[in-house]
């Protein structure tokens, strides 16, 4: 049998962070007491009518621009009919034939390779409520706060070939949504979710029949689900069977997918144009204006950092993923005063650690590009050691200020005076006979202990690089 290849397509749903819901004036907030953010419209009470929130349309156009999609100046809302207790109208207002965004594409980097993922469409729709189970009550409870929360659905072409590529795509989409500030993408609040389509075929043959995985609630679950599904389908094909078109439920706890429905009992949603809403119309000027609001996006930045700045993918993603971090990085680099790598290392290391530990954004700190550039320069010159630089950076983050002053105030200036270093070297050689002996007997690692001792003596101010050289000189030549 020829080699098997897997094909993956995704449907990503993201809640939009508009201040109000998509069809009524209720607040779009998470975490409020059940059924407090509702009105007759989002509860679908008899006689109520929807009104489309234009902000939602604008947001959809923005993500469309970000993913290089064709924007339909005229699109339409449709009804998707099905019964479920979390859906008070028993239909979801969505878009079927004519979505706001048509075809587009985006480049992802995975395993050093750039792959273009085609976007099939992006449409807007309303979210449903939530069913709750309470310990004190054996029935089901409904919370309709989420009804009418605006969603976009991004549908891709079957252009990914591995779970890693799917993961890279999902991370990139999340990053872009945050960049253009239309979704907060909080996974634990369910504000970004996805369905996964997987098929497996023999290389050179047409694509296989696909299965759709539902109930995928995190990006890592998507990876696990895809891998399980590839294995399952590969198993079927290898043993001579054929994969049937199915919708399957992913159980992340058990790590398995189970059949939800097959082709025969596929649901018929009976889509038809929503008669309560008119067409969604944009004038060309407005579409252009929205495009101008889009900054350089993480996909472009990633590629620029990896290809032009020689960063590793992981580092590039850490910086590109955050609009603030990449802005800081780009500002530092644009001064031309420090090396790209130095700035990148501080951002990927200490600054990211600080942000993760405290949960603060950069704007909530006192750090600016000027401070970071000065620190990079001092570090590159050897004015401050790496451990000293961490202290200075801490100060810059907490209080800001002039880097030279901080170095002085903290007393972390690195001493690179040759005579001072020499004297330190002599002192430790004299005081550490054992290590000296070891070194001279070929245990070159012993130098580490000597450097450490010398640093201690200098209260951490000596340049460790120079110290090491001075020690090596003395030990190798002054037998």
């Amino acid at each position, binding site marked *: 049998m020829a080699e098997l290849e897997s094909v993956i397509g995704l449907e990503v749903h993201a809640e939009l962070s508009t201040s109000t819901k998509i069809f009524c004036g209720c607040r779009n907030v998470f975490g409020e007491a059940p059924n407090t953010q509702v009105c*007759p419209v989002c509860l679908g009470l008899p*006689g*109520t009518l929807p009104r489309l929130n234009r902000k939602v349309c604008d947001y959809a156009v923005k993500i469309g621009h970000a993913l290089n999609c064709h924007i339909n100046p005229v699109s339409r809302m449709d009804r998707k009919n099905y019964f479920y*207790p979390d859906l*008070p*109208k*028993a239909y979801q207002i969505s878009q079927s034939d004519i979505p706001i965004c048509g075809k587009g594409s985006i480049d992802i980097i995975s395993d050093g390779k750039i792959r273009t993922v085609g976007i099939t469409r992006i449409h807007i729709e309303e979210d449903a409520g939530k069913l709750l189970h309470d310990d004190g009550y054996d029935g089901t409870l409904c919370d309709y706060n989420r009804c009418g929360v605006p969603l976009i659905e991004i549908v891709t072409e079957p252009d990914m070939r591995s779970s890693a590529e799917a993961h890279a795509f999902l991370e990139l989409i999340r990053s872009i949504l945050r960049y253009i500030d239309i979704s907060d993408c909080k996974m634990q609040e369910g504000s970004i979710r996805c369905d996964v389509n997987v098929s497996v075929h023999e290389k050179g043959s047409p694509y296989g029949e696909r299965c759709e995985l539902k109930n995928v609630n995190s990006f890592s679950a998507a990876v696990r689900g895809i891998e399980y599904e590839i294995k399952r389908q590969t198993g079927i094909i290898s043993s001579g069977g054929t994969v049937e078109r199915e919708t399957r439920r992913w159980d992340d706890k058990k790590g398995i997918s189970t059949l939800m429905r097959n082709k025969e009992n596929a649901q018929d949603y*009976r889509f*038809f144009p929503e008669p309560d*809403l008119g067409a969604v119309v944009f004038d060309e000027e407005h579409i252009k204006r929205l495009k101008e609001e889009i900054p350089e996006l993480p996909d472009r930045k990633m590629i620029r950092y990896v290809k032009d700045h020689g960063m590793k993918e992981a580092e590039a993603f850490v910086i590109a993923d955050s609009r603030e971090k990449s802005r800081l990085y780009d500002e530092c680099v644009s001064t031309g005063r420090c090396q790209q790598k130095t700035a990148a290392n501080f951002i990927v290391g200490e600054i990211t650690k600080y942000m993760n530990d405290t949960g603060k954004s950069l704007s909530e700190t006192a750090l600016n590009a000027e401070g970071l550039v000065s620190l990079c320069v001092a570090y590159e010159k050897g004015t401050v050691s790496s451990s000293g630089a961490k202290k200075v950076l801490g100060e810059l983050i907490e209080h800001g200020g002039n880097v030279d002053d901080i170095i002085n105030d903290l007393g972390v200036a690195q001493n690179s005076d040759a005579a001072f270093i020499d004297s330190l070297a002599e002192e430790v050689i004299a005081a550490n006979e054992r290590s000296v002996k070891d070194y001279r007997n070929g245990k070159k690692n012993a130098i580490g202990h000597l450097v450490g001792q010398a640093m201690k003596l200098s209260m951490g101010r000596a340049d460790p690089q120079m110290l090491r050289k001075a020690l090596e000189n003395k030990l190798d030549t002054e037998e």
Partner: protein
Amino acid sequence: MLWEYTATELIGMLHRKECSGKEIINDVSIRANDVQPLYNSYITLRSAADTASDTICKADECMTLSGIPVAVKDNISTKGIRTTCASRMLSDYVPPYDAFAVERLRLAGAYIIGKTNMDEFAMGSASDTGFFGAVRNPLDMDYSAGGSSGGSAAAVAGGAAVLALGTDTGGSVRQPASLCGIAGFCPSYGAVSRYGLISFASSLDRIGFMGRSVSDLKLLYNIINVRDSQDVTNFSKKNSAEENADIKGLRIGIVKEFSAASADSDVTAAVNAGIKLMELSGAVIKSVSVPSVSLAVKAYYIISSAEAASNLARYDGVRYGHRAENFKDLRDMFVRSRSEGFGEEVKRRIMLGTFVLSEGYAESYYKRAMAVRRQLCTEFDEVFRECDIIAAPVYPCAGIRLGEKTSSVKRYAADIFTVPSSMAGLPAVSVPCGKNSKGLPIGLQLIGGRYHDDRLLEAAEIFEILRGDDYGRA
């Protein structure tokens, strides 16, 4: 008695202090209670006790409708007053908000006297499909009041209300108005906000007005025809600038396809006499053609049922409305609640509507019906370049005998005169134009160009004057 007057007359009397609002409300309320067992025109008739807390205190202040009792069809939401759509499904549903039209009525000082009986969810043309029994025609109680706004028509015709709101999806204001001998007006689609009107077929539903004279219709229309941002299909496009409806030179179109449809001879005779009357007064009669009329009823039942199936899906027993007592699981709860809560006609339309939208059938039914609808609109547009209004019958016969077994298809076919203008969203009015040998009234339908509601009402008022005053009083 005060209940015999039109709203326009009563307002004059109030201004001249010949009566008080309190007297009008009391008089009409007593009459309504007296005739309720006979006509069954109300589902909920408010008691005099409610009156005290309501507009009676405002009744003597001079707002447009101060002291005027207005009946509201029971598919229009009224805050705090149960709104049932004549369905078991909603028999205890009390809306937490007022429909826009009701809000406008209350602002104008009107007294909402009660909620009128109808066909269940407005599906029917004899007001006999509802959970609360059939409405009887005040002019002859062996006959139906027509439907689906039969309760509103009977209330106005029988003196149990001065004015009424009805709703018209395929003729539901015009037909009962015609059969009860009163005036009924269905404005252009979008002219009146639907907010609070419980949807049957969203793209066709309209709130309409019923009264004992065309001037009463104008009165209601002017109060309610205000832009409402809650309904995005609502327009406040008025073409009143050149709405001259002088009968001299008024171009009246007679649609060939309507003439070819089979109406009873007494209906045809009365309608033709009405048209002749206008011609003699200087109107120009033109023969016009709207070929798609022959497909209109079929397309209408496809589109309206499709939308109805979707609109009525929300009645699932989860949040409000009827819920079955015993059920095995979620699906069973949906099935039992809906099977018990809906009547036969509603179920028929849900089945039909579900079918025509199903995968594999939507192309040949729903989409083709939509194409017919677009074609109808184009044809009407052309016709209205040649004429100002269209004159036609409202209903093929002068009366529907209660309890008469008629097949659904035959009943649907009787909507031939009202459905085409519904599909095109055109304003239409029914004005009494004669009676048959049994004394049952016959209405003349005048149809206007879209948004030419004012011109249409002017023309209807002229016809009413020409016709004289001896029609239309029960």
